[in-house]
């Protein structure tokens, strides 16, 4: 029932989660069981049923094109563990 390790590694990479070996085994087994539980969905005929993404048809709440925000960079950058000269910093990215 457990998801195979390669599949777990692929998901962990997509989700940017480092998994230690114990996590990997445990979460792989749990996900395998969860997927088996989800498979109950395959029992019912849903042909022709329109998918429902949100509960109620809500009218589109469009915003007028107005600048309502002022510079909050000082407060926002202060939340970051690494910023310099007004920029957020990350380890060097090579393109």
């Amino acid at each position, binding site marked *: 029932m457990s*998801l195979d390790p390669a599949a777990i590694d692929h998901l962990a990479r997509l989700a940017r989660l480092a*998994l230690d070996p114990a996590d990997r085994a445990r979460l792989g087994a749990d*996900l395998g069981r969860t997927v088996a539980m*989800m498979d109950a969905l395959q029992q019912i005929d849903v042909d022709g049923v329109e998918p429902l993404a*949100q*509960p109620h048809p809500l009218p589109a709440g469009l915003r007028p094109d107005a600048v309502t925000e002022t510079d*909050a960079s000082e407060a926002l950058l202060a939340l970051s*563990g690494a910023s310099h000269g007004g920029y957020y910093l990350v380890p060097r*990215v090579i393109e």
Partner: protein
Amino acid sequence: MRPLGRLDTVAGALAALRQGEVGASALAERALARAAEHAALNALVTSSPERAFAAASAAAGSTGALAGIPFVHKDLFCTAGLRTTCASKILDGFVPPYDATVAERLDRAGAVLVGKANMDEFAMGSSNENSAFGPARNPWDVARVPGGSSGGSAALVAAGVVPFATGSDTGGSVRQPAALCGITGLKPTYGRVSRHGMIAYASSLDQAGVLAHTAEDCAHVLAAIAGADPRDATCSARPVDDYVGALGAGVAGLRIGVVAQFFGDGIDPAVAASAREALAALEAAGAVLVDVSLPTLPLSIPAYYVLAPAEASSNLARYDGVRYGHRAEPVADLAELYARSRAEGFGTEVKRRILAGTYVLSAGYYDAYYRRAQRVRRLIADDFARAFESVDLLAGPTTPGTAFRLGEKTDDPLAMYAADVNTVAVNLAGLPAVSLPAPHVGGLPTGLQLIGPAFGEARLLATGHALQQRTDWHAVLPGGGA
């Protein structure tokens, strides 16, 4: 067990304040003192006494509808200048620079925030055991869970620390802990209350809710927080009903559908019997009970555990260590910054749901799981719509059992997910629902869940009020003076 005091409820405390029997500062002091007495519940993760006393002083001259009433926020409502963590290490030390709409409206109504409540990390859980602060406990039996994810909120109200608390309900996170702690929990219609500033778990299911002792109190609080918000595109522009004014509507002739599936396999017969007893009280008050079947309901757990993790896997991608929150150090490169910040910051259940959500959205599985779950979601919503053609409300036990012991289900995620069996369908359909205290079983509280059609909060609360006028299952506090 001891009786609920006048100052333990919103309505009672408002009357006492109005009549000058007590001041707002004294109420704040009382709440903080009680919080200290109940520290063992581990329900309050941040206490804000200075803020509380400042708000209490301001409340003295306020005409706000909740002026002077102490409360706590579940720790996922952003509060400007006050730590907001979602009970996650990844938001350790995060102090939001802004207020959630719910926080802003309660401030404006004069309510007095005394602190932030424990919860399951990112609202993922049904026991409050998935918290970076450790589990909160049930005031009726501290060896047991308070339910989740709004476990801290429920425990603090149930213990008489504050008259009300905010919560959020994505699959039962207000109603289930309310039931397990013996209080009233309201989950409004999706879109009735703004989600702005309420940290997201699953956006199409999340809805802010209220935990209090009575339906009447829930009406007071909902009136303060409901209504359109230009900062949330999914918040309804529909006018807000007069919930307090409608409380006396009564239940004569009200048709209540008793949903067969809510009494199915896996429901503790004693808990089912409690729900039936509460329904009998409503029947005695003039309501008409009708048997109803919602055939797609058994698929609500699998549908929910596809859709909610899918949305969560995307909603939680922003926690990457760059702009706020936990940042792993030192790291060799960007990939390590991401993978380690997230691995160190998120707890096991959050990782589980992120992986599950990533799985159901990934290439090759989207149609079989995600899209199929959306179709089943439609069928479930249609089941409800059909039922509401012939009844006014639907009913059943809120939970399959009473509060379980700490650690009882932590090794078995599927057993934990099953705790939501009677609550998740309501979120899938976006409907309003309330959990009302029903007779105790083995010394532990149980809940009766009532579900209404979209935007039917007024009738739900009036029905709860009618029940609570005739019964006293809600009118007790745990502990001394029994």
